[in-house]
């Protein structure tokens, strides 16, 4: 359907002409943006920033300027409460590093994040759900040794589960990247065993050679792929779905303006996500 709108968009472009215009947009107030996550066995990581005007110039320094370093960030699992802090000013993320008494995610627990910026409190709660293992991983070649990674999942009976997929090429990618459409729920697939495939996610605005040209989006023979398959709360799925729709629609005039959802209360933007993760590795031969 989205494709259809895109087609109509394309075909109208064929007969139309376009020009650059200057828009006088109203000034909007800066909002606090929180992007935080926690996974079982890992400490929480929280990035706090502010939103920028739509046409404000964006570069590395402005991203840096947008980050908030004086927030008070606390986390609680209902029993234990800790304050997160920035350990390395070059990477202004709030976390908790205490090897003697670590605070790491545990399956089945709910975590409440509280962020205070300029005297205002923002809170969110997210639960680490039981990880669900994929039955198997396999590679399906599309062309010239390039293809997608597929998985078989036996989806547990009972509606309400939601998932998010990440993958990393071991030794090549810096981290696990989610592809577009990384999050799905079980509305259509509840209780069934089914196959699904994903293309290779990449860092934003990537200029790596493998993200250009014909290799873009493909895994290839020789890759060792680690898949991080996570279960998430339904509101996390809703956040990522609306986020990906908005990022994907970016500028599409035929799409309804999407309000990206948030699970944070208090007027901030962003997400506080708890992941129940399971890992699998596929060596593509």
């Amino acid at each position, binding site marked *: 359907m989205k494709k259809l709108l895109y087609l109509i968009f394309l075909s109208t472009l064929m007969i*139309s002409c376009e020009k650059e215009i200057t828009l006088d947009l109203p000034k909007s107030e800066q909002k606090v943006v929180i992007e935080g996550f926690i996974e079982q066995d890992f400490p929480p990581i929280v990035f706090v920033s502010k939103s920028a005007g739509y046409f404000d110039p964006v570069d590395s320094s402005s991203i840096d300027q947008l980050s908030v370093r004086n927030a008070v960030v606390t986390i609680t699992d209902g029993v234990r409460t800790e304050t997160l802090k920035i350990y390395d000013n070059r990477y202004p993320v709030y976390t908790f590093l205490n090897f003697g008494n670590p605070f790491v995610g545990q399956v089945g627990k709910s975590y409440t994040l509280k962020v205070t910026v300029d005297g205002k409190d923002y809170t969110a709660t997210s639960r680490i759900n039981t990880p669900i293992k994929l039955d198997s991983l396999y590679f399906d070649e599309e062309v010239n040794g390039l293809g997608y990674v597929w998985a078989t999942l036996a989806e547990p009976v009972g509606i309400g589960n939601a998932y998010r997929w990440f993958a990393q090429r071991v030794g090549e990618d810096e981290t696990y990247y989610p592809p577009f459409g990384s999050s799905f729920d079980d509305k259509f697939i509840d209780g069934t065993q089914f196959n699904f495939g994903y293309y290779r996610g990449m860092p934003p605005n990537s200029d790596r050679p493998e993200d250009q040209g014909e290799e873009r989006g493909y895994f290839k023979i020789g890759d060792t792929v680690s898949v991080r398959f996570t279960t998430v709360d339904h509101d996390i799925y809703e956040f990522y779905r609306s986020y990906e729709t908005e990022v994907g629609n970016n500028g599409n005039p035929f799409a309804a303006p999407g309000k990206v959802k948030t699970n944070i209360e208090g007027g901030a933007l962003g997400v506080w996500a708890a992941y129940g993760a399971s890992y699998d590795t596929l060596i593509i031969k």
Partner: protein
Amino acid sequence: MKRSLLSFILLFTFSFAAHAQRFSISGYVKEASSGEFTIGANVYVKELLKGTTTNAYGFYSLTLEKGTYTLVISSLGFDPIETKVVLDKDVRLNYSLKSKSITTKEVEITAERSDKNVESTQMGTVKLDVDEIKKLPAFLGEVDVLKTIQLLPGVKSAGEGNSGFYVRGGGPDQNLILLDEAVVYNASHLLGFFSVFNGDAVKDINMMKGGMPAQYGGRLASVLDISMKEGNNREYQVDGGVGLIFSRLTLQGPIKKDTSSFILSARRSYADFLARPFVKKTSKFYGSGLYFYDFNAKFNYRISDKDRLMLSGYYGRDMFSFNDNEADFSAKIPYGNATAALRWNHLFSSKLFMNTSAIFSQYNFEFGATQSDFEFKLFSGIRDYNAKLDFSYFPTIRHNIKFGINYIYHEFTPSNASAKQGDVEFDTGKMVKFYAHDAAAYIGDDFDLTDQIKINAGIRYSLFQQIGPFDRYQKNAIEQITDTITYKPGEKIQTYHGPEPRISARFGLNTKSSIKASYTRNYQYIHLASLSSVSLPTDVWMPSTSIVKPQLGNQYAIGYFRNFANDMFETSVETYYKTMENQVEYKEGALPEDGAKDNLDYSFTFGSGESYGIELFLKKRLGKFNGWVGYTLSYTTRVFPELNDGKPFYAKYDRRHDASVVLSYDMSKKWSFSTIFVYSSGNAMTLPVSRYFVEGRIVNEYGERNSFRMTPYHRLDVSATYTPEKRRKKKQKDDAVQVAPDGTSTDAEEEAPVTKRRFESNWNFSVFNVYNRHNPYFIYFDNAGDADKGTLEIKAKQVSLFPILPSVTYNFKF
């Protein structure tokens, strides 16, 4: 409600009793040359300074006291007939109007009676004459009924590339569009560049943007009532045209002379319209294209002077195909309407006219796409089976009573998707259909209270009932389905009903001016939900359900009407105020697939609307130089608790200023010129106001809904029509009468059978958007560069559809 009905009955029974012995004059008015019945012709009684007009089937009836009268039968563009009638018994009088001879022909934009503007109770009603529309500049040379309607005050274009129109702050779904009484659900071809109405097959166009009489219902904003030609019942006739976009051909003639006739009309666009000329064979988009075709057909059979049968139909299809050969992706999108109407006119007496209709109407839309072995299909549509019984009763010259009943069985298929990969079918849920009964009864009377005050009062009572089979899903707080209620076929699910009073009154100040006021209340039980900012064939029709309540509209209007200079000029000032309840929008961020395996109406959110405005209209009706100027100032807002944080916002349809100028000049027999200028305030739209980063990617945050305006739209079009000297057609088939070699002309307008005919043709040269204005179609944002490298730039881009476009069309008739 009971009381108002009662007072109705009392009112006219009382007025019957007050008069002496009466007889009626009734009959049909038709065009001499083709035998087509004339809609809205005036039948005027000179002695009484009163009259009536023919109805949609050309029938009129006058009941007068015994005596001798002078009747004047007239319709603009025709020579009036004046006759003496001695009325001492009921008489049946049929009249044939002859076209005005060329030399005295005046160009009139409408076919209204000279003082009808001031005289009638109707407000916000405009009749358009197809022959005159054809002289106006047209987009790519193709005359379009809907585009012309959008030049009237109060009727706004939804924008280029969009045949939808907005009437007085109402949405495109709030217009009742009728083609020979059958509802047309999507009146657009080629994504809205043209409408489904073929000018060669259309006889009469009547637009009501307010104060609609009780026989119409089911929509809040307007009624566009289009009648197809019946077909020439005197002789065979061919009309056609060759243009840049499509060609058309119409064939009509008698089956049995003066008794039965047919008309067949077809259009086909050239397959290459939108994409193909721009797509090279080597392009990855090769094979993409867009075309349409449509047919109109009508058969007309006069069984006797009292009975007449009409069968009419329309079938149209658009096909949009798109290929991306690199991505191994292809899509086909066929969509279109089909309608059929069988009607029977019966005259019970000279005072009681009946029309019975059985109508079928359908719109559907399909989308099929394949990528490698993945297949996706989407289907949506609506289908109606409609039966109607309408009566016109003419008890005295002071009353024209209409009453009737109407029943529709609806079948909605809002949106059904199926997907499969190889042999694996994905479970996208059952095919969901909605079924509903839709019934109404009405009575209305157009009557003279005094010589100054004329009233049209009526009431319509409507009922809508959603019935099974249907599965209603129950949801929990996080919108997960927890339970399903299954309704059996025919089982009642939800019923809505209510009265819809209508009243309009005209108070004559003098013979040249009047004040009119009206109140209209309407229920609308079906809804069109649109995801995007433009209306597309993907928009789905939804019935009222237990979640979606019927729309309710109240409209109040008051206007001043005045004619000048011996009816040369017509002017009016109308103001209106309108409220709309239970308006439907998608929830924020809703996606089209939300309806799969769910009840689609859960993705809707509801609110109310308000619109008010003032419309000014000045028309020069007669003379070589004629045309009109219209201006509208209006405000339209919506309030939805779940949208825009519950704050009021301007509707998509909000246009502050809207103006149009339409001028025609008949220079000579050969040349005529016309021009159109339109101006309207920019469309309201929602734009992002700020940005933030999540996972290193930019996310937009939007400003208040529809708080931004695009730049105003304005455009000038001109056209010239060249009509070459008429030639005689060489020879008519099996025609014994030879045409005189010197070509001496005999009058072709004679009512006697005509065996020789002239070949008529004209060339229309149009230039669209003369000063090449880049009007905004939409605005989008282009992100380029890399945030990490400090090169990220966001540019706003405005896309305009049509630059200056010259075109030429050749039309012929023989």
